[in-house]
């Protein structure tokens, strides 16, 4: 409907709708006899929107919230001067917070790393604090209600602080997730997320939604949701904890509003403050914990990717002779054909049929050289892991073609026994090629001492049940150590080997939820078996 309109229409409408909804929720989360909401969400929503938006779009995004603000507030019987005053203080909170974030972190903002999360938490504290002085001053200046200035500052600050800690991480993490396209989650992961969400909700309702058996139990009950929150942080990172915290916050406030849960012992004011402090104190360390863990995992992933790439580059070094062979063959065909054509032109200039044949062969040879380069580029470029549906037979053919030169110069004869109708697997093309290339090269190198007519390498693919197997066997010297030893990092029997190939292959296959096995063959040689889960049953 809005596809044809200016590009600001849809975001402006979304901000207005979100602001209105958040304001209505803020009213719902107001304890009886309380003038200030326990959780005032609209300001936090505005701050999150500004953090994600370009600075030059801030003015119209804030303006878009004005009608929603007027519509929501004027229904509550507040004087119009106060309604406008609150809009000014709400916008100032969002602007202060977003400006703090923008001053220290470049766009696009992501909740990763200590710096970014520290800046966001600083803004979540600083913006409500600074704007609450203005807000309370406006209230007193306009003369709305009787609450003293400093009490107003305190109440508004804690209400907005909790909202910032609840809303901003949620919006920022989900925006980053959706900006990268919704990740295709495995069924098991979806089930886990659903179990986590249901478990957390259930525990929160039991703890915060029913009247407490006794005031003495209250401190112990606070810890009941903690396992679920830790589960969210550890297994789902910042997005997980940012999604789990609002569940606890909403359940806690909903319970208190309905006179249930541990926050019902004191006066409404005391209960509100206790609840806000409890929720804010729980949110900060949990967010930092999730971010720290996520950063550590990210660094580990990056180092592993670097090591994997390093190992690929090392393989490139081993392949260099074979690559020279693979390129020199078509170059020979091109050069000799061109030289022959020169003779034909000098001796039989009219024989255009022969010249056409020669040119066709030159084109074919050139294309073949191009394919060699293409395969190399695809294999050795540094790229993010990308899973796709793969045909292992095609992968075996590609890698065998890549290693053809090396196998030829080593006098290795390759036999492919590829299963017909092999189910596809889900995996990263480059990484699985790396595994196969590594096994092929290992097999070829293991047969150096064999007589030239006994260097046979066999690659077999087959499917059993829900699994796809690729078996690489050689007739080399085999191995005398326990198979597991082969997969240890830096274990090598080669003089110039890094000892990374099999170790990295093992971790690649494991990351693909598969297994890499090694065995000695009867009659000499080694067999390496890659087993991967099939996408469809055989």
């Amino acid at each position, binding site marked *: 409907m809005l596809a044809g309109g200016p590009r600001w229409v849809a975001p402006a409408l979304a901000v207005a709708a979100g602001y209105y909804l958040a304001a209505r929720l803020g009213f719902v989360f107001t304890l009886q006899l309380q003038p200030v909401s326990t959780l005032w969400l609209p300001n936090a929503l505005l701050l999150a929107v500004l953090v994600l938006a370009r600075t030059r779009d801030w003015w119209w995004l804030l303006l878009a919230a004005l009608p929603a603000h007027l519509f929501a507030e004027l229904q509550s019987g507040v004087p119009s001067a106060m309604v406008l005053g609150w809009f000014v203080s709400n916008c100032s909170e969002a602007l202060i917070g977003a400006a703090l974030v923008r001053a220290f972190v470049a766009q696009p903002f992501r909740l990763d790393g200590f710096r970014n999360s520290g800046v966001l938490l600083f803004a979540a504290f600083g913006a409500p604090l600074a704007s609450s002085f203005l807000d309370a001053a406006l209230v007193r200046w306009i003369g709305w209600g009787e609450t003293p200035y400093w009490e107003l500052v305190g109440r508004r600050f804690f209400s907005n602080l909790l909202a910032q800690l609840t809303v901003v991480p949620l919006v920022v993490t989900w925006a980053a997730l959706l900006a990268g396209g919704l990740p295709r989650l495995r069924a098991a992961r979806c089930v886990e997320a659903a179990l986590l969400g249901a478990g957390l909700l259930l525990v929160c309702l039991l703890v915060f939604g029913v009247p407490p058996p006794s005031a003495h139990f209250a401190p112990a009950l606070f810890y009941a949701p903690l396992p679920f929150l830790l589960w969210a942080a550890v297994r789902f990172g910042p997005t997980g904890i940012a999604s789990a915290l609002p569940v606890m916050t909403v359940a806690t406030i909903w319970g208190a509003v309905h006179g249930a849960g541990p926050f019902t012992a004191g006066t409404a004011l005391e209960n509100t403050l206790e609840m806000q402090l409890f929720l804010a104190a729980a949110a900060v360390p949990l967010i930092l914990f999730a971010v720290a863990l996520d950063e550590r995992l990210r660094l580990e992933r990056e180092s592993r990717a670097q090591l994997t790439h390093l190992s690929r580059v090392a393989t490139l070094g081993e392949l260099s002779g074979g690559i*020279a062979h693979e390129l*020199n063959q078509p*170059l020979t065909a091109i050069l000799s054909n061109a030289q*022959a054509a020169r003779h034909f032109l000098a001796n039989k200039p009219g024989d255009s049929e022969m010249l056409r044949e020669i040119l066709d*062969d030159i084109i074919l040879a050139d294309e073949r050289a191009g394919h060699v380069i293409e395969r190399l580029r695809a294999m050795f470029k540094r790229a993010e892991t990308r899973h796709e549906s793969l045909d292992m037979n095609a992968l075996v053919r590609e890698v065998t073609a890549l290693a053809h030169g090396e196998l030829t110069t080593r006098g290795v*004869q390759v036999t492919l026994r590829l299963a017909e109708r092999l189910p596809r697997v889900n995996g990263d093309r480059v990484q699985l090629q790396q595994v196969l290339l590594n096994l092929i090269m290992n097999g070829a190198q293991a047969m150096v001492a064999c007589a030239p007519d006994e260097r046979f390498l066999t690659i077999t693919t087959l499917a059993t049940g829900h699994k796809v197997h690729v078996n690489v066997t050689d007739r080399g010297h085999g191995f005398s150590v326990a198979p597991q030893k082969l997969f240890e990092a830096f274990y090598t029997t080669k003089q110039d080997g890094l000892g990374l190939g099999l170790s990295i292959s093992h971790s690649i296959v494991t990351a693909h939820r598969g297994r890499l096995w090694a065995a000695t063959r009867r009659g000499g040689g080694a067999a390496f078996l890659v087993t991967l889960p099939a996408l469809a049953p055989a």
Partner: protein
Amino acid sequence: MALTVPFVAIVDDEEPVRKALKRLLRASGLEAETYESGQQFLEASAKRRPDCVLLDLHMPGLSGLQVLQALRASKTTLPTVVITAYDEPSSREQCLAAGAAAYLRKPLDERLLLNAISLHVNRLPREKAEK
């Protein structure tokens, strides 16, 4: 004595290379025949002996070096120009020690190739070349 066109055997496992070299040699006034493996060449050379052989070093089955050794074992003196797309440091010495007349790297320089062939073909006693 009739003038005969020297006959060169081309042994290479890759068809595009065999075809291109055959074209070049024929365009240069030589007779050329191709063989896709060392085994095929050894069998054929027993029936019709070439004046010179262009022998690829790296081939599946019998390698160029093994063909040279087989020729030497059968006491066959055949001017052999070893050609290779992958030049390892020790290959040249090994091939020359095994009786190769020349050792050339691919892609082949036409002048060097024809020089190597003509040098060894011309050295052949005329009557032997006519066999």
